[in-house]
């Protein structure tokens, strides 16, 4: 591996492909999706910043309840729900529409046809979301977890999604070549699973409410699968695409990829019922959910092993590449968060962690430390190729990485320690409830501090992004890619 750094910087460069025909083809594909991918990325970053503001307000209110307490608009329940929807549907979905579709088009070696439709659908997606989150804050919140957006905005979201999803599937239909890569399986499956989940949940909970707790079962089948069958496969697809791309060597094992994909497809979608352990639903449903949750260990270990073996020995290159630094952080988090999640589904553990901040920490561990970090990596890889420009500032990328990495680590550790204490104390009826609340305070304050770190990271990301987008002076393609190695000249400018 003596020449590894060289091959690394070659493969990081958008101009590195040896084959001129492949380069021409990729650049044609990139051109076909450029405007919609940039639009989705800009939208995603705006929602990321808006979601961060909502998060800071909600986090601060959790230990200073009278802060902004004079208005119903900023009460805790609405702010945390505005945060959740801005992050999940605003940041998450927009960045999936950008990075996921771009990877799909590239792997299918098929330019996106009628890219203008994607732009229109994307505009309506974001209008619908603005309406929906405005509705949440104004008091039309549904109080159904993960489905808070009021009924007047959801049809708009469903229709725009349908168009975007169909465009991804159409790209797949017009693919060239016989082989279908693992990232394509995940993206194709997710594009198909998400609308099914969303429509069923809307119909059975909001439009024609099912009887009693059937709603709750549907609710958690949906909500957990948004993570498991939408965000997770999209992030895994991105990791599977970027790791070999940047390192210039193939994924370790094809068979592990197959096993990981099918095990996830079969087990993950039964797992959501673990949110109702101890609840008023038939015990066999809960047992099925627990079994599926524990079986998730299989795809997690398999994918973790596959990713690990693909980067092993090249840790310097990983650390040097902005893309892989984020992607590998996310991939490691996937293994950790999933194993913790399987443990949380076991009844004796759940008896403690259920209903506490432990679960909140776990949710952020998954959606941020895993999904979001990988998507940051995806943006760092995609934008230079779409814009033919390099990232203007390596220090800002580093600031982004450390803000995000430190922030999310502090948050997960604080909420999980605090949540565990809260759960143990709540199960002891001798301890008065208000005393338990008081004991969670230091941990909730730590969460607010962690939010400040994340905010710094997000601002660094946004500044670098818009600097690259608008500043003509950022065209540095000939100098080579922006890397994070302090000894390398490329990253210093």
């Amino acid at each position: 591996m003596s020449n590894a750094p060289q091959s690394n910087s070659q493969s990081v460069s958008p101009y590195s492909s040896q084959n001129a025909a492949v380069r021409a083809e990729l650049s044609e594909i990139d051109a076909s999706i450029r405007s919609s991918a940039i639009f989705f990325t800009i939208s995603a970053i705006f929602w990321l910043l808006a979601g961060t503001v909502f998060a800071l307000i909600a986090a601060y209110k959790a230990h200073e309840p009278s802060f902004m307490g004079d208005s119903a608009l900023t009460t805790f329940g609405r702010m945390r729900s505005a945060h959740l929807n801005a992050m999940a549907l605003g940041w998450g979905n927009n960045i999936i529409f950008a990075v996921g579709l771009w990877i799909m088009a590239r792997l299918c070696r098929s330019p996106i046809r009628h890219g203008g439709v994607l732009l229109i659908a994307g505009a309506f997606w974001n209008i619908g979301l603005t309406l929906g989150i405005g509705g949440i804050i104004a008091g039309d919140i549904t109080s159904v977890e993960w489905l808070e957006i009021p009924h007047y905005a959801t049809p708009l979201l469903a229709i725009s999604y349908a168009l975007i999803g169909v465009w991804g599937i159409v790209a797949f239909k017009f693919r060239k070549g016989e082989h279908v890569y693992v990232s394509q399986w995940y993206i194709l499956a997710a594009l198909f699973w998400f609308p099914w989940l969303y429509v069923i949940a809307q119909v059975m909970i909001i439009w024609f409410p099912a009887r009693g707790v059937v709603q709750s079962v549907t609710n958690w089948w949906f909500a957990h699968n948004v993570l498991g069958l939408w965000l997770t496969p999209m992030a895994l697809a991105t990791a599977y695409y970027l790791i070999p791309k940047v390192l210039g060597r193939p994924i370790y094992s094809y068979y592990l990829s197959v096993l990981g994909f099918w095990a996830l497809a079969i087990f993950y979608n039964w797992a959501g019922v673990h949110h109702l352990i101890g609840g008023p639903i038939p015990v066999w449903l809960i047992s099925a959910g627990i079994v599926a949750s524990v079986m998730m260990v299989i795809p997690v270990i398999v994918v973790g092993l596959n990713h690990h073996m693909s980067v092993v020995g090249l840790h310097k290159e990983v650390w040097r590449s902005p893309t892989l630094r984020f992607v590998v952080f996310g991939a490691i988090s996937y293994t950790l968060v999933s194993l913790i999640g399987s443990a949380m589904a076991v009844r004796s553990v759940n008896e403690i962690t259920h209903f506490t901040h432990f679960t909140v920490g776990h949710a952020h561990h998954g959606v941020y430390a895993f999904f979001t970090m990988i998507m940051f990596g995806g943006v760092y890889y995609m934008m230079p190729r779409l814009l033919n420009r390099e990232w203007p500032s390596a220090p800002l990328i580093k600031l982004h990485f450390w803000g995000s990495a430190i922030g999310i680590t502090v948050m997960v550790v604080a909420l999980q320690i605090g949540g565990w204490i809260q759960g143990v104390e709540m199960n002891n009826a001798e301890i008065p409830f208000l005393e338990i609340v008081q004991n969670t305070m230091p941990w909730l304050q730590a969460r607010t501090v962690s939010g400040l770190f994340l905010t710094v990271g997000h601002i660094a990301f946004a500044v670098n992004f818009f600097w690259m987008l608008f500043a003509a002076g950022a065209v540095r393609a000939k100098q080579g890619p922006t890397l994070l190695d302090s000894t390398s000249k490329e990253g210093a400018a």
Partner: protein
Amino acid sequence: MKNLPLLFCGIFFALAFSFTGLILSSNIQLGSLTQTTETEDENGNPLEGEPLFPMQSVGLAQQGKQVYIEMGCIYCHTQQVRRAGFGADIDRNWGPRQSVARDYIMQDRVLLGTMRTGPDLMHVGGRPLNADWHHLHLYNPQITSKGSNMPPFAFLYETRKIDGEPSADALQFPPNSEYGPEGGYEVVPTRRAEALVEYLLSLKLNYSLPEAQIVE
């Protein structure tokens, strides 16, 4: 992977399997649950002439549930009691028995919740807390529960100048409370606050069901 029919079928059936197993089957098992009496005859039929449970929530309480939804109370309060021996729900007097599927069948929107930043509310109407307490607590939780991190809902109340006789509905603050209004002013609940308190007081798990008896 080159076997695309297998890929498509796999993607479809993976989700179809859990949709059938979790959603459709629970709808079959629970969708036909009906109200019944506290005990049933040997054939499993409700006893004639006895009240049916759970009761339908009506009137002001029903409007109060809408306020509960709009304020996002669910994000800190559950409405479910776990069985004795699993957690301390019953030991904490959050309910005299565990809640079961039938308890929720009359609700258009089920608010089980998954977070207990605050206590469970399944049986809050059965606790020794009256409407006055709830109003003070909602107006500012620090009055009744010092150290709570529940946000104040003072915007559901109106502070107004006492015109002649003080209103009978006015909140009764403890003497010298720092949260009380200035002299000559009083704090009265709006209709939404009245409805919310009515809803909270209506939340009671004080009846037995054939499958979930209250044991004294």
